């Protein structure tokens, strides 16, 4: 079957989709967006976390056909999504009609380009991505995309999270390298930076 939905703010189409196929498979294998990771395929690990109409979900548990006509944000579009949100206040989804988004080609070729610590240049990362790098929250990196999407969504909802809030928001994302402490540091760092740059925003 054919499935149409918006990915990172741009309409996309996938053909020959098997009816039992997951959204995750379509993203990775048909659209060439391997950022969302395929690990447990049963909703246990959170590595495939994407936003479906703004809501964090495990892409492995969404049937591709269920995404028809809906709006998906993956880690490849996260930087752009965060930028849109910062510029337009609150809503970074294609759902609220902002033009732009990330083209499939750009998304496929997306690379992590952190701020250069010497020159302060580069910087095509969302604040949460930059914070993960700065805090050393990335080890093998496999869980990172899911954690980034989940953490970014929490910071959107809850700009000043307590440690308990962070743990709860990330409780569906498993990391087997870090012991989570650096990830906690990264989210705290992103929250602190967010409150510095936009003190008037949020709750």
């Amino acid at each position: 079957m054919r499935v149409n939905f918006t990915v990172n703010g741009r309409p996309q189409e996938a053909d020959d989709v098997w009816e039992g196929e997951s959204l995750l498979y379509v993203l990775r294998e048909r659209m060439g967006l391997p950022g969302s990771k395929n690990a447990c395929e049963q909703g246990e690990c959170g590595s495939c976390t994407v936003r479906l109409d703004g809501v964090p979900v495990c892409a492995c548990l969404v049937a591709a056909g269920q995404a028809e006509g809906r709006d998906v944000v993956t880690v490849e579009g996260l930087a752009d999504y965060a930028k849109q949100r910062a510029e337009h206040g609150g809503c970074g989804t294609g759902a609220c009609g902002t033009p732009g988004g990330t083209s499939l080609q750009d998304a496929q070729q997306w690379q992590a380009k952190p701020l250069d610590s010497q020159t302060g240049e580069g910087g095509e990362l969302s604040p949460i991505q930059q914070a993960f790098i700065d805090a050393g929250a990335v080890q093998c990196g496999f869980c990172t995309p899911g954690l980034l999407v989940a953490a970014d969504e929490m910071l959107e909802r809850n700009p000043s999270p307590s440690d308990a809030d962070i743990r709860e928001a990330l409780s569906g994302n498993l990391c087997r390298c870090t012991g989570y402490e650096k990830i906690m540091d990264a989210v705290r760092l992103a929250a602190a930076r967010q409150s510095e740059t936009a003190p008037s925003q949020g709750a």
Partner: protein
Amino acid sequence: MDFLRPASWEEALAAKAEHPTAVPIAGGTDVMVEINFDHRRPEYLLDLNRIAELREWETGEETVRLGASVPYTRIMEELRTELPGLALASHTVASPQIRNRGGVGGNLGTASPAGDAHPALLAPGCEVEVESVRGSRLIPIDDFYTGVKRNALAEDELIRAVHIKKADGPQQYSKVGTRNAMVIAVCAFGIALHPETRTVRTGIGSAAPTPIRAKAAEEFLNAALEEGGFWESKKIITPSIAKQFAELASGAANPIDDVRGTANYRRHAVGIMARRTLGWTWESYRGTSRGSTEGVA
């Protein structure tokens, strides 16, 4: 495989009538696991996501009519007052990602004895609204679970909503697992005090072939509370009554040994949870401590 995408409830019923083997999929948190692991290859998937009314609820005089697909996240955030036990149970479901997709209809459709919602549906009491092209009917929750992963649905019926009695007293929910998130219950216990009718109802999960009530424990407790005038006096329930209640709850369990726990452990844990949740709810009823919707230890 065919993917059916009804745009309305009527279309969904027609599709289910035409294809009784169609597997309904809403949150997908059970169905997609089975498909991903090749445990199931249904001829038809019946997507219910386009039917907005399944994600809505109405609060009436005595009941909440909870749409089958209202995500657990919404229940725990927005129905804590009306459905405190179910809100607590919802909070123990898997992870935020899963709670954003899954709803009570899925738990009921799957009818696994380990479904987190079941004890919190049995304790307040509810009716499951199911419908087919032949018509609609309400199935009392006590008649809904018919066997391991079996329920009272006819093959052409779909679950539309659950009519759950609004809390008229404190409710609690307790679940044993190896950690707080992403865990299938080793066993679980729900309790609801109903001061209006001076009754206590319970629900036990993961400790019998189906979710069950601890009926002997309820009957004993109801009689003991009545006899001792506890509902009026609001005095502390004597340890011997609590102990007997716990033993009877434990006796209601009919568990098995499996990877998550032994039958003996489950029986023991059900008794402990029964005693503790009775204590928490009764303290709340007496108005001496935490509210009915707070704190699960």
